[in-house]
C-alpha cells in the first residue's frame, strides 16, 4: 500500500489515536519518512491537541466546585434518591 499526501490526511486523526491497522500504519510511516509537509502537519495537529488539552483552555469558573457542592448539599438534605431508603 503506497499513499500520497492527500490520502494520508484522512488517517492523521486515527493515527494519533492508534486506531489504524498495522498495514495502514506502515504505509503512513513510510510516507511520513519522506514527506516533510505531512510530517509537519502531523506535528502541528499533535501540538494543537496538547495545547487544547491544557487546563488553561476552558478554565473552571472561580468558585465552581464550592457552588456545586453547596447545591448538592441542599439537595441531599432534602431527599433520598429515587429507589433509596433513608
Amino acid at each position, binding site marked *: 500500500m503506497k499513499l500520497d499526501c492527500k490520502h494520508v490526511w484522512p488517517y492523521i*486523526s486515527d493515527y494519533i489515536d492508534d486506531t489504524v491497522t498495522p498495514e495502514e500504519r506502515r504505509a503512513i510511516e513510510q510516507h511520513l519518512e519522506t514527506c516533510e509537509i505531512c510530517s509537519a502537519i502531523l506535528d502541528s495537529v499533535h501540538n494543537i491537541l496538547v495545547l487544547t488539552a491544557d487546563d488553561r483552555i*476552558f478554565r473552571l469558573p472561580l468558585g*465552581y466546585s464550592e457552588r456545586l457542592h453547596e447545591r448538592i448539599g441542599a439537595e441531599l438534605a432534602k431527599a433520598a434518591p429515587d429507589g433509596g431508603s433513608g
Partner: protein
Amino acid sequence: MVQALAKEMDWIARILRGERDLFHELIRPYERTVFLTAVSVLRDSTEAEDAAQEAMIKAYRALGSFRGDAKFSTWLTAITLNEARSRLRKSARVRVESLDDTGQEEDFTPFLVADWREIPSETLEREELAQQIQNAIEGLPPSYREVFLLRDKEEMSIDEIAQALDVTANLVKVRLFRARMMLQKQLAPYLRHELPQRRRWLSWLGGRA
C-alpha cells in the same frame, strides 16, 4: 479501572441505603468532566455551570437506576449531555444542527506547513493565545465540538464517547477527524507565528528572516 468501579458501586449502594453525604465524594473526580461536557454543548461558561449543577442533581435523584453496565463517568456524561442539550433547545439561541449529513460539501484538508517545532504549553500563559484556541473550539459545529472535547480534553475512549452520545464508534471517529482538521486549519496559520525560533545557523542557510 475495575477497582474504581467496584468502589463507586459500593459507595452508590451505601448512598442508596442512607449515607447520602458520600455523594459528594462520588462525584468529586468528575466535576471538571461534567463542566466541560456542558461547555461542549452550551459554550457559555455561566450556562454550563448551571447545567453541570442540574446534571449532578439529576444524577443523584436517578442514582438507583445506575446498574454499572457503563462506567459511572460515562453515565454521568450522558446525563450532562441531555441536560445541556435540552437547555440549548429551550434557549433557541443557537441552532442545533448536525453537519454530519452535509459534511461532504466541506473541506477537511489541513493547512500546509513546511516545518513545525513544538510550541510549549507555557505559551498559553498569554491570555490572547489561550482565548484564540478557545474561540476556535467554540466555533466548531456542535456535534464535532462535543466529540472533540470528550476525546481530546476529557480523554474518554472512542467507545465511551459512542456510548455516552448513543452513536456508533465510527461516527465518533469521523466527527473527531473533522474537528481536528478544522482546528488545525484554523489554528496552524495563527500558531506558526508562535513557533520557537529557528536556530541561527539554520536561518542563515534558509535565508528566513
